[in-house]
């Protein structure tokens, strides 16, 4: 299993319509950006992880292991946020720690944790989408449900195949130049020069491939008929709506309970 890649299997989340899943996940991510307490944010993350395990049947522990290098980044963001929080704006700060001129209050710690957890949340939800969405279904759903132009949709799909090829090509060019004894110094200026040199063969190759694909697609009558049909049955089914309602109710319930106990805070101002 790759870290940020589609995992081919059958699960509840795999079967959900990609556009609906995307919109729902985006809505949840949007909501969580207005939450300013770590508890609610953690609740969102927890529900996300729960969906990953139960609904997508993905090995969450394995995913965590792969995320390990990222935890360093998360920790850094948390600490920076704690320090960056402007305690002087607080009406009645509860100071926990003083380092020189810096005051670290209880609210600043909560703020830092919120930001860290929020990014964690984003990661979880992004993985949830990417790992459970077949790229082909995703593009078809964008075309069929969200009215993306087929030209752009199929173009993207054709281009998607070239991404790994491009990587291999870059590797080859690098090796070929290296063998011929071209400059391999590591300075930033050298790197830019090298990038310029590599980009010509890369671009030439990419443009040629794109042209060939375009000719091949047109040869098969792509967009020759206005109403193209589709072999894959990508539409919004009743089960999708069912899933949507259940998920929305669950998150509303979480927010209701936490709000009832005064835990959920909305907006930056709530921290003062």
């Amino acid at each position: 299993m790759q870290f940020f890649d589609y995992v081919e299997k059958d699960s509840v989340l795999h079967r959900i319509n990609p556009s609906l899943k995307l919109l729902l996940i985006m809505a949840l991510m949007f909501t969580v950006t207005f939450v300013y307490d770590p508890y609610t944010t953690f609740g969102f993350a927890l529900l996300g992880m729960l969906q990953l395990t139960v609904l997508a049947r993905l090995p969450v522990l394995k995913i965590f292991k792969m995320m390990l290098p990222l935890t360093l980044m998360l920790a850094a963001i948390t600490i920076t946020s704690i320090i960056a929080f402007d305690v002087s704006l607080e009406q009645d700060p509860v100071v926990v720690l003083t380092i020189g001129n810096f005051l670290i209050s209880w609210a600043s710690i909560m703020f830092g944790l919120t930001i860290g957890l929020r990014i964690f949340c984003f990661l979880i939800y992004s993985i949830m989408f990417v790992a459970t969405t077949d790229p082909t279904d995703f593009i078809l759903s964008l075309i069929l449900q969200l009215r993306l132009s087929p030209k752009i949709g199929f173009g993207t799909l054709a281009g998607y195949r070239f991404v790994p090829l491009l990587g291999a090509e870059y590797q080859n060019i690098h090796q070929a130049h290296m063998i011929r004894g071209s400059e391999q110094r590591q300075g930033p200026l050298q790197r830019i020069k090298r990038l310029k040199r590599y980009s010509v063969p890369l671009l030439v190759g990419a443009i040629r491939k794109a042209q060939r694909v375009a000719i091949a697609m047109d040869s098969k009558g792509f967009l020759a008929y206005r109403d193209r049909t589709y072999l894959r049955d990508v539409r919004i089914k009743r089960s999708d709506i069912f899933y949507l309602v259940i998920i929305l109710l669950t998150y509303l319930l979480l927010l209701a309970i936490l709000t009832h106990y005064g835990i959920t805070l909305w907006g930056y101002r709530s921290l003062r």
Partner: protein
Amino acid sequence: MRDPVISIRDFSLSYDGKHKVLEGINADILPSERLLVLGPSGCGKSSLMLCFNGIIPNLIDGRLGGNLLLRGKDICSMQVNELTREVGIVFQDPESQFSMLKVLDEVAFGLENLAKPRDEILAGSTDALKNVGLIGHADELLSRLSGGMKQRVAIASILAMDQNILVFDEPTSNLDPEGTRQVAGIIRGMPRSKTLIVIEHKLDQFIDIFDKILLLSGKGSMIAYGPTREILKKYLKQFKDMGIWIPQIPRFFLRLKEDNIGTDSLPLNLDQARESIKRSKEARIIEALDSQVQKRIKDGSRPKNAPAVKVKDLSFSFNAGEPVLEDITFTVGKGDFVGLVGPNGSGKTTLAKLMIGLYGLKPPSEIDFFLPDGKIIRERDKISKKCGYVFQNPEHQFIEENVFDELAYGLKIAKYGQDAIKSKTWDMLGLLGLKGLSASSPFNLSQGQKRKLSVASILIMDHDLLILDEPTFGLDFAATTMLMELLSDYNRKGKTIIIITHDMNIIFKYTSRVLVLYKGRLAFDRPTSQLIDHTQLISKASLEVPPLIKLFKEVGEHAVF
């Protein structure tokens, strides 16, 4: 007489309105006919194909002259969707003719475009996949398939649309022998209801299926159009002059004819050749065959030389993944001309790159590179001063902005004097026939010229060892012969050459030793002439014995008259 499906009348094509890419083409292609279009590279064959389904002028600008009629209707007056129901094209490059990620989706793509209902799409796609023997791979990712399988998917995706005219634009030229065999077999087995128009230069496998040949000159004008045997007989000289491959079997018998050793009708494939020889009972045919074959198999018995590279217990995998190479041990002697062959994905390129130190090794794997004085080096930067490597894609190694500087680049790095650089570079340009192009960008050259340049820019360095990854890929007969003779000369100067190729004619004609890689293991390491007898290995490792050698093995050795 049946009405032609395509009639071409005094047809010409021009992209800029002045310079003509195609000119004076006249042909009547009958239903169910199999037509072969031949011409040197860059003669406009592919452009002609794109006119057949209206890509030119509908999507690519071009000025058409004369008439191009599809069932009596002018192609220029037809809609693209009308044309796509009639004409399907399979292209050369298996990597860049797909728009979807998975096999079934790709095959269904055309039917979807034709707006067929879902059950029809499914039925049509499944049938097409069955026809090319890939029904078991319907749900697989295209990127996981071999080149031959990809081309079969491409054919299936055209078959699914059930057009009557199928165009194949060099369908096997990017494939290894096994892939070529598969695709040639499918083309051979096409139902007679289809009209086939094929551009191809590797024709040993299926020259016999063609009813007619359309022969174009290098400038895109028509030289001849007629029945296959007639064209081969009449235009042998033109074929040679233009550097077009002539399939081995008919070429051999045509040469015999020149010496008045006659067979009645010109054999095109092995079976016909065998029959013809039996019937004629001419001992001279066998003699001629014998001498031809001797010319084609290099004698591998040379004295044991000091080693140039020693590979010992080599195993290798990328990022702790599946092993690419396992347990490989061999030695290449100084002055050897070694062929490295095997199916695509068997690890040939990886092995070659390991030899020049591009990847790190883990013990007990060892690769020793020997300097002339017997000293061993293992570091990449030291090896690359002593060993040249020509990459598969010539564009990947282009560094400079014009041809002259590109050739001189290595010499500059090696700190040659100005005068030496100039004279060496001009010499090489002259040798390649590229003098007139010294100031143009390497990227503006033709495919053949690019390849010549990429080989020459390494050759000029006069390295002791040269490794080449498919240097003749995509070259026509003339360019291939020229390049291989260049390498042969180099080899005769005592230089060591290792060449990766799928072209078995090259292997037999030029190399003294063959290494066969199969599934990451070394399956064969002996003089080339001994490979012929290992028939099991040959079919297993996707190799091929050139038809003339095969013929000799079958009829020559036991011939009693």
